[in-house]
């Protein structure tokens, strides 16, 4: 690794179809050299490290129209463009784009792949500078705060001081809360969606199942599967299947699949995927392993398990979640969904109570939906109205120019 001054940058120009026209398809990346290591909560450092990111829209002259989007466990920086590996629309294509609630005619949107991820940012599948082989389990354990610290380095590198908004759902929402607690001066507004200020015992339990499934796969090779030219696909697929159940509500699952059989009239008295739900989950697992690194799944789920905003920001015993937001000037919009049982409404309410305790400026909507946790990825009209209204009002307050009328490009 070289020791030149300053980070290096790059934007690869991968070919691909692009429905959105001017939206860039390729990922940009910035590599921070050995002289700018990422200092981790564990006490370890990562250097050098790369952050891959996407941007949409145009940065205004005052650099005051930036929205940072934080992605969830299995998301990545490809928010609103076709995914380079799957060819599918970006994971928040419904939310982000020209004329959409996060209007790229008005805002400059940034989303980066988390540190520890596998879509271009440094993670366990990246080469370890010590031996130029993939890190595997030699990659240090990271936290949500470490992810946010790496994002802050990217924002610094882009020479942006204040973020008009930081928003994200699920684990992305945890990063939003961490941003607001760690960099209150830099975050004008924050939208944590379908999230919690700490991982519950049940949440940790589900993650543990996923990790055990991966580690029980003989192809995992103690995390060194890269050297054996193998992938613990079966384990990762099972992890995904188990997790996927937590993303759906019981009601939605029952309605969609019920006890319907898959391409057969009666059960086979065997262990094939007799039921549609089995087949569906297998398909979800199968699709997932094509694009995701198993070790990255271990590291990111671990980071989430460790997340406890109140404990992480407590300066003295007895400090509560409210102390993490003391004196905050950030304007919040907390969103939950009625059928989300992974991060249920009560978790959002805990955040809101803490924000009330410091008299923060907070909006809180609990959206009626039967779509479970995944509702945050879908076009729920009340949800979109809330985001649109909140952002427009905050933009007005921040003196941002409205999007040009009729400009849908």
């Amino acid at each position, binding site marked *: 690794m070289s020791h030149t001054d300053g980070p290096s940058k790059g934007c690869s120009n991968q070919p691909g179809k692009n429905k959105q026209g001017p939206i860039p398809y390729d990922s940009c990346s910035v590599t921070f050299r050995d002289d700018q290591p990422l200092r981790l909560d564990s006490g370890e450092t990562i250097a050098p490290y790369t952050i891959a990111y996407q941007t949409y829209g145009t940065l205004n002259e005052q650099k005051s129209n930036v929205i940072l989007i934080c992605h969830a466990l299995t998301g990545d920086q490809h928010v609103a463009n076709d995914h380079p590996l799957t060819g599918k629309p970006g994971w928040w294509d419904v939310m982000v784009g020209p004329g959409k609630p996060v209007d790229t005619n008005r805002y400059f949107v940034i989303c980066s792949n988390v540190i520890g991820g596998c879509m271009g940012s440094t993670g366990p599948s990246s080469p370890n500078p010590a031996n130029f082989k993939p890190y595997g389990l030699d990659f240090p354990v990271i936290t949500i705060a470490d992810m946010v610290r790496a994002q802050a380095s990217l924002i610094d590198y882009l020479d942006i001081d204040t973020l008009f908004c930081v928003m994200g759902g699920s684990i992305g929402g945890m990063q939003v809360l961490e941003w607001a607690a760690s960099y209150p001066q830099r975050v004008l507004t924050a939208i944590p969606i379908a999230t919690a200020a700490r991982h519950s015992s049940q949440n940790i339990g589900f993650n543990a199942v996923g990790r055990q499934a991966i580690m029980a796969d003989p192809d995992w090779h103690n995390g060194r599967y890269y050297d054996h030219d193998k992938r613990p696909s079966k384990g990762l697929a099972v992890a995904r299947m188990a997790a996927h159940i937590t993303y759906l509500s019981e009601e939605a699952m029952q309605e969609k699949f019920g006890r319907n059989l898959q391409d057969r009239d009666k059960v086979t008295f065997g262990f094939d995927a007799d039921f549609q739900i089995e087949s569906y989950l297998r398909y979800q697992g199968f699709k997932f392993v094509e694009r995701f690194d198993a070790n990255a799944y271990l590291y990111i789920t671990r980071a989430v398990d460790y997340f406890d905003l109140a404990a992480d920001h407590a300066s003295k015993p007895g400090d509560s979640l409210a102390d993490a937001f003391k004196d905050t000037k950030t304007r919040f*919009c907390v969103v939950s969904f009625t059928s989300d049982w992974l991060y249920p409404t009560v978790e959002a309410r805990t955040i809101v109570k803490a924000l009330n305790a410091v*008299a923060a400026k*907070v909006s809180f909507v*609990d959206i009626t939906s039967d779509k479970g946790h995944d509702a945050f990825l879908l076009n729920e009209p009340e949800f979109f109205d809330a985001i649109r209204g909140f952002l427009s009002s905050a933009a007005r307050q921040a003196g941002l120019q409205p999007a040009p009328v009729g400009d849908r490009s």
Partner: protein
Amino acid sequence: MSENFPNGTEQVTRVDHLLIASMVEPGTRVLDVGSGNGSLLALLEERKRVDGRGIELHQEGVNKSVAKGLSVIQGDADIDLIDYPDKAFDYAILSQTLQATHQPRDVLEQLLRIGQRVIVSLPNFAHWKLRSQLVLTGRMPETSHLPYKWYDTPNIHFCTLKDFRELCDELGATIEQSYTLNSYGYKLPYAVPYFLQNLIGEQAVFLLKH
């Protein structure tokens, strides 16, 4: 708490809202408890440039308010006021909501703790129309202002203007300003004695300080 006016709250700016707005100094921090669909908050933000927050029981009103760009949360005045720090707001406002709370005395106490000043607007159950309906028909009164049946009314703790003044006394709250409105929405002159206000006033707005 919802605004207990069945119709037309969006079309016309309510008289009590205008009165409340006239009591609020520009650029102050305001908490509207029972903010309904956000019409009072929107009025205060527009006319007085306040830094406004709302708390509303019904999710529909909350979602509408947030979609309008207002900082409103879903919450219950009886339960959630305890979370707010002392004197966090210049004004804590309770507009047509006190009579719908379970513990009006506790709610008012919390408001006096949270706000430097408290503004309360409430219907007067001693208005002559209500008195006469009760006396003459022997039934629970219904008016255009309070149109509910006894079994479906959200207004579970009615009081009269006299009762309210007494409660303020008990809680050590000073009434700095008050307006009483007749059933046409006109302010009664200050010279009208309290006992008469309590008879011909349909609603009133109070500005309190602890």
